[in-house]
């Protein structure tokens, strides 16, 4: 048998390398998308990114980002704007993924600056805290493209940090994709996955950018009740946060 100890990187490894291997070790063992999400969130502290997304790319014109995203760790307001305005079609970072297998920094992506679409995405992102980012393309065995992107207010990655994030992205995508296909293969159990009308209403207002308090005013419910509906919907849809919940609800056609 291979000695597991022999698989660890050599002695005298510097910190970011060791951290990268530790993160991969935990990603491999994650059993839920919540664990995966938290792991990627906490690794941000070590690598200096503030937000992230793990997503497939739309393969057909009818497919939305919400249909293929796996983990959405963008700031809520940016994610809503991005999904609502279908920026996935014009984002030059997304377009670049389709043409390369090597990781890249967003600011290195060449795009036609006279084209208002791509320029809009790139110019708006910084005001949502996404000044720059590092993107790792994935090209799956069946030809489908995907990517993992890490966004930051200030990106400063050493060569080792880039290599470490490259490796982390591969594992994050693999695990997110396998958890998603397990979830898709699992038979629907009872009420799980089926949302009530109230839950759907709350999600619809959340998707429209309303806070819990605003939604409670609109629906004449207490704020606490609104939060409860959203929490139970999140549980049913296996969403780890508000953004994921909205994306998943859209994907399932529960809300527009």
């Amino acid at each position, binding site marked *: 048998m291979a000695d597991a100890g022999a*698989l660890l990187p*050599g002695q005298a*490894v510097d910190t970011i390398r060791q951290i990268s291997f530790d993160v991969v070790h935990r990603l491999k063992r994650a059993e839920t998308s919540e664990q995966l999400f938290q792991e990627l969130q906490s690794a941000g502290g070590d690598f200096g990114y503030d937000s992230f997304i793990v997503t497939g790319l739309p393969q057909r014109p009818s497919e939305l980002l919400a249909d293929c995203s796996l983990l959405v760790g963008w700031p809520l307001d940016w994610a809503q704007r991005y999904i609502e305005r279908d920026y996935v079609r014009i984002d030059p970072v997304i377009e670049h993924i389709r043409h390369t297998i090597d990781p890249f920094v967003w600011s290195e992506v060449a795009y036609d600056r006279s084209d208002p679409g791509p320029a809009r995405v790139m110019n708006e992102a910084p005001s949502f805290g996404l000044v720059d980012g590092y993107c790792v393309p994935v090209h799956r065995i069946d030809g489908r493209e995907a990517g993992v992107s890490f966004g930051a207010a200030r990106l400063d990655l050493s060569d*080792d940090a880039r290599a470490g994030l490259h490796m982390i992205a591969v594992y994050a995508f693999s695990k997110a994709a396998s958890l998603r296909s397990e979830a898709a293969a699992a038979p629907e159990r009872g009420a799980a996955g089926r949302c009530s009308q109230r839950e759907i209403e709350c999600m619809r207002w959340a998707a429209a950018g309303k806070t819990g308090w605003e939604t409670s005013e609109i629906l004449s419910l207490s704020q606490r009740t609104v939060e409860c509906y959203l929490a139970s919907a999140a549980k049913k849809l296996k969403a780890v946060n508000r953004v994921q919940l909205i994306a998943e609800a859209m994907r399932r056609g529960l809300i527009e």
Partner: protein
Amino acid sequence: MIQMIEGRYGRHHADLMERVFRFRHRFFVDHLKWEALRRPDGREIDAFDGPDCVHLVGLDGDEVVSYARLLATTRPHLQSHVYPQILQGAVAPTGPHIYEWTRCAAAPWKRDGTRALDPISGYQFAAVAEAAERLGLDGLLVQTHPIIVERLISIGWDVEPLALPFPYDGKPLMPIYARLTPDTAATTLAVYGLAGPALEAPAERPGEGPAPWAPADR
């Protein structure tokens, strides 16, 4: 079907091995442009094609259409003797139950562009897992682009990174240890939508006794 030929029995398959070396030259030199391997006689063959290596040869009739080579890690192999620097100081596992997977190829000129999944590649990948089972291996050392690491995981290998991706010839190369699981071969076939087995049954060799990897009760 994929044929498994151990290096020590290569002389019994001289014609086929000749086609294998020409296929490797066409794929790695002409197609992938690994110019360092270019040879005037058009045969890609190196010091590692010895008695201890295992050739996995994909055939379409008489034509070689895919290939992979497994090297014993108890002997010099690529990670130990060609580019040890990509391990960046890490120690790779070696031993009688660990081989190194090298020279993986599926003819792009045979690819049916209308299909997302290339069955030639699928059979070749599945054959590697089946051969690892037949040889009683725990896993395989591989060095590859990280884009391939995701694919190996998706077809059922339990992949342990050995070192961070390292620039080699201008491209990131990642040394990994791909552990065989009881489901690896079946997962690969299922992903590609193929029926197995991919590997041909072991050939009988009258007068030579059973091959070393043949079950003891044969």
